[in-house]
């Protein structure tokens, strides 16, 4: 396929930190409206790859394309302008403030002299939460203070914000790590919402099982290389586990939520470590 068929495409990316080659000729792409799971152990190169896509690092060699056009001199502001938003684990939220304040933080709806249109911001927040994100709990309103919400719900607020401000590609960095079973389910449902709104998402995780539930495609990284690329319609979870074991060897398999001889992580949806 040509570069035009992808939202973002990275070709032959290599990256050195001093003399260590942390990425070796990596080819990676995200389709329009595609949820890509990016799986790999610590040090596999996931974060470095993401940092190159978001302009934090520059690749030593290789090319980046966005909607078919080559990106020159990629940078963080440029990535933001193009519509690439990373939702980090710390989520960039303010805990002592209500949801509507968090959604519009730094991008307030104001009149010409800077006074906030509070009514409008609350209405937009209400719409966003109910219609797009599917917050069903009646105890959560735009006025709910963020500090009173659970980890998964906060993640949801951060994702809502990205969607509201027209991010085309949302990168979730370990969104389910450290969350309980029910919270993980919530986050996964938010990821499905991203899909429903027609946007694309890269879902970085250690846990194969979490990402299998929502991804269209899973990309596996190991020691700086892409070592697997699986479309979800074409492979069952069992087959995927087997492949994963072959790729990474038995010892490393646990890092992907896979235990040899057992179907899934006995702890349920919880992280494997």
């Amino acid at each position: 396929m040509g570069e035009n068929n992808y939202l973002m495409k990275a070709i032959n990316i290599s990256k050195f930190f001093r003399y260590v080659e942390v990425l070796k000729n990596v080819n990676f792409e995200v389709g329009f409206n595609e949820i890509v799971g990016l799986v790999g152990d610590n040090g596999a190169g996931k974060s470095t790859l993401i940092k190159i896509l978001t302009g934090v690092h520059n690749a030593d060699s290789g090319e980046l394309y966005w909607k078919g056009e080559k990106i020159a001199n990629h940078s963080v502001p440029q990535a933001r302008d193009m519509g690439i938003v990373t939702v980090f684990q710390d989520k960039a939220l303010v805990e002592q403030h209500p949801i509507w304040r968090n959604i519009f933080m730094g991008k307030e709806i104001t009149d010409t002299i800077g006074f906030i249109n509070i009514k409008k911001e609350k209405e937009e927040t209400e719409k966003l939460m109910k219609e797009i994100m599917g917050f069903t709990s009646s105890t959560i309103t735009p006025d709910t203070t963020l500090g009173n919400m659970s980890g998964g719900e906060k993640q949801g607020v951060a994702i809502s914000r990205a969607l509201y401000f027209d991010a085309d590609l949302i990168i979730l960095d370990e969104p389910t790590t450290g969350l309980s079973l029910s919270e993980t389910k919530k986050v996964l449902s938010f990821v499905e919402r991203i899909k429903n709104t027609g946007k694309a998402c890269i879902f970085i995780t250690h846990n194969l099982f979490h990402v299998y539930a929502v991804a269209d495609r899973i990309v596996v990284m190991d020691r700086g290389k892409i070592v697997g690329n699986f479309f979800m319609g074409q492979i069952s979870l069992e087959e995927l586990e087997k492949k994963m074991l072959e790729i990474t060897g038995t010892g490393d398999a646990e890092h992907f939520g896979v235990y040899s001889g057992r179907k899934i992580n006995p702890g349920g949806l919880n992280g494997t470590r």
Partner: protein
Amino acid sequence: MKLRIEFFNKYKISIGVTSVFLILMSIFIIANPSVFLNYRAYMAVFTTLGASIILAATMVFVVASGELDLSFPSVIGFSAWIFAVIVKSGVSPFIAFLVALFLGSIVGFLNGILVTKVQLSSLVSTLGMNFLIRGLIMILTDGIAIPLPFLRDTLFHTIFAGRIGQLPIQMLWSIGYAVICWLIFNRHRFGGHVCYIGDNVTSAREMGVRVERVKIATFVLMGFSSAFAGVMLTLINNSFWPTTGEGYLLLILAAVFLGGTPTWGGIGTIFGAIIGAFILGFIETGIVASGLTGFYKQFFYGLILILALISHRYAGLKRK
């Protein structure tokens, strides 16, 4: 009924502080009805309360942004001195006032630069600035006061220190100033950004809040309000003292914390700070009028402050 509970929950800190104030005033009225049922007691307090309200309302911005400004007592003195020197040389007091406001803001700007660009702790750097400027005033004035008796009959005096009926006009200026502060703090983008920085500076920066610029602006605002207060205090007695502003340091901080603005930043209440200023303003008069000696003043400041912090704690004000 549900609406009433929601209203209470939303404003419980403000309601609590206002209750404290009302209870305190009731005690004073019972202890000495002849003084506290007469408007004169109130007018006397209002004459000096104006400066406290202006300072406390502005300090909420600084505290909510997660910083402190301990230099304002000297900025009050510095601006008052600038004002006095210029007026004494025969220039219009209006121009002197503008120059004082400008120089006060400049000191605030310097504070802001030290905190953001040089990355000093605001607690220590503004404390240093407080000593530095007070020292400078003492050196330059030789510790001698500047009397400005000719100000009394000027238009400037009527506008900034006159009376409407019996009401000291300072009160109108300060309430007007506080209302603007309230609007900016609660309804304007700037107030929001101040709070986000105090809550989580990394999050604020990630979401595009210009952290350094906003912080510098809060210090400039503090310098501006100190200058405003300095000129007001000079007009009370039409005289500049080298010690002008001393004694306000802990009083203003107490008013802010008493009012329900937490020490850790991120949130704040302008309304609470104003009520806090009222409470502390009336304690002195109240104690003397109740027949106790002035020695009880500090004791009651401390008592009220600690009781207020305990009540805020139980009203749910704690760091999450």
